[in-house]
């Protein structure tokens, strides 16, 4: 049977895709030391060890869905600065990054996109905030989160 959905897998030239989005691997900088990131229009960036980490790729793909749903301007203008600020604070142990709205809404959109799968890692990639002490818990009123 030939799948008509977006391509997930590796091609003969070594390039990898997740739901049609290019997955780039690098061991340089933060990504080499344990980080991942997404630039809609360019692709998902992960450590080579996580090229097939479906749980992480699903989260990163959620950022692609944010840009599709709410626009590239909103993604690069609002989501990226907040996400980077939150990630830096969380990296120092100050708070839970996945309780920041830029992250849990990425999880939520991805969880819905994949049909609310039972094998979703809800502990690591929550679809709602789990720590309310985070100042970035609530998304702006302008975005629509209705199913």
């Amino acid at each position, binding site marked *: 049977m030939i799948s008509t959905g977006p391509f997930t897998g590796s091609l003969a030239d070594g390039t990898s895709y997740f739901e049609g989005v290019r997955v780039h691997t690098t061991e340089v900088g933060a990504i080499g030391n344990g980080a991942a*990131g997404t630039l809609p229009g360019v692709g998902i960036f992960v450590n080579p*060890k996580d090229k097939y980490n*479906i749980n992480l790729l699903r989260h990163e793909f959620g950022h692609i869905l944010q840009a599709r749903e709410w626009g590239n301007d909103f993604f690069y203008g609002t989501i990226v600065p907040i996400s980077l600020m939150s990630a830096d604070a969380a990296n120092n*142990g100050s708070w839970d990054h996945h309780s920041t709205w830029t992250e849990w809404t990425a999880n939520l959109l991805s969880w819905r996109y994949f049909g609310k799968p039972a094998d979703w890692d809800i502990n690591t990639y929550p679809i709602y905030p789990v720590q309310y002490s985070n100042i970035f818990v609530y998304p702006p009123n302008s975005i629509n989160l209705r199913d």
Partner: protein
Amino acid sequence: MKELCYMNNLNFNITLKSIHILIFNLILSGCDYYDGRLEVQNTTSHEIAVETFLDSIPTLSELNKTEYYLQNSISPGETERLIEMGSTKGWIFRIEKSKNNRLNLFVFQIDSLKKYGVDSLVSLGIYDKYIFSQQELDSKNWKVVIE
């Protein structure tokens, strides 16, 4: 017309430059930090799944659904890397957050998971328990061998 082409080229160059700056920043700073140092090696003869808890007694609220464990199983002879999202020191923070200041790793057999589901296994205490201090994990180079 020539002027228009020049402007288009200029815009294209600016866009290309912005994309390069974004990629450079992303690789340097990341967006989603995580700690991928913990490895679990399955030297048993059966397929297993693992989970960590914040106490030496597992709680149902910290569990994923059974399907998640079936999807993320570790075959005999295989080594799986566990990632803790949020920080490159994620496992250290997780240990500090736990009630006993230890990493509480629980092992479930896939055959049992298929038969009873993870909730029943936890309620009935059908699992193996591995508890380590940070010092013990450092000395093992964060590689836990399941025997």
